[in-house]
């Protein structure tokens, strides 16, 4: 009986420490995700490739020529969406268009799923900005949740977004890109 209570006493602080450390880690950073900045970040080229992470209350995009930060407190809205793009890459995809018997078109049928992350924020002067990122499938929602946890605002929660269907009648896929 005494042994049991001793082990319990040992495990409770350990458990508490583990929970606390994971909480701190979650506040500091989350796993970085490969992303493409489609448009919006100042001084960053369109379709710039890089990594996206939430670090120290910032949405950080690290690309070839530098780092761009967006403070989570300045974020007004975050919207995620699903999309698809050609599985066969850019150059090969373009060359394949010349393939006989519609081979290029056939290749267009093979597509991979991607996520889009749209962020709206205001800078220090109060000016409105918007940024669109493309991330691998299933990654955008995790970043959104992380941003919300660190103080970003959003008008639509993921549950609301699922229920709100677009009035155009098309699926959310294929709407962007």
């Amino acid at each position: 009986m005494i042994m049991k209570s001793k082990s319990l006493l040992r495990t409770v602080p350990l458990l508490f420490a583990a929970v606390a450390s994971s909480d701190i880690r979650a506040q500091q950073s989350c796993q970085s995700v490969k992303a493409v900045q489609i448009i919006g970040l100042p001084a960053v080229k369109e379709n710039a490739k890089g990594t996206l992470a939430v670090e120290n209350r910032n949405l950080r995009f690290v690309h070839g020529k530098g780092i761009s930060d967006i403070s989570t407190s300045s974020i007004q809205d975050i919207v995620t969406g699903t999309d698809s793009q050609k599985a066969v890459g850019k150059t090969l995809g373009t060359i394949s268009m010349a393939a006989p018997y519609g081979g290029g078109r056939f290749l267009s049928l093979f597509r991979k799923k991607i996520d889009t992350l749209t962020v709206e924020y205001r800078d220090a002067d109060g000016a409105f900005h918007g940024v669109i990122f493309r991330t691998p499938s299933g990654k955008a929602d995790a970043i959104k949740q992380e941003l919300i946890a660190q103080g970003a605002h959003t008008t639509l929660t993921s549950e609301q977004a699922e229920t709100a269907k677009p009035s155009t009648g098309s699926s959310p896929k294929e709407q962007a890109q």
Partner: protein
Amino acid sequence: MRNGRRFTTLLAFCAFLFAGVVLYAGNSQPTGFKVGGIQVATIQSDPISVPAEFHVALYENLVRQLEKQGFEHVYRDGDRNSADVPNLVILHSTVRQFKPGSEKARQVTTVAGATSIRVHCQFTDRDGHTLLEQDVTGKVRFFGGNLRATYDFAKKASLIASKKFLATDGK
């Protein structure tokens, strides 16, 4: 008598033609004042449902294209620096029609899946007086992603703005 009637008809026709030309030119002719800057208000789309990425792409492309066209000062919505700018032109954009299209359908069929967007652009002064209003469409028919329609729209809208508001600067 006959000649007189013909002459009158001809005169009326000429006057009608002249009035038409003047009215048409008046819409695209530059304004009299020197524009201090242009401010782009956020894109409105009520009651049409437009995905968030289209909203952002429309806005960002519009800002970039206006800068490319030669506007020295392009202010974003809510920018405090625009408060004291004289002769500020404000561009209000409202999406009137949106057809999402499909990149996949375009790539596979070539003819189907076009994306199109029609936006009502209204240029006003600070007091809200309309300086110019026009519908502008953006389309992507064959190549490129759906968001390319927003680039097409922005290019056309910025060209209209530069013709109307920059021509007085001798550009």
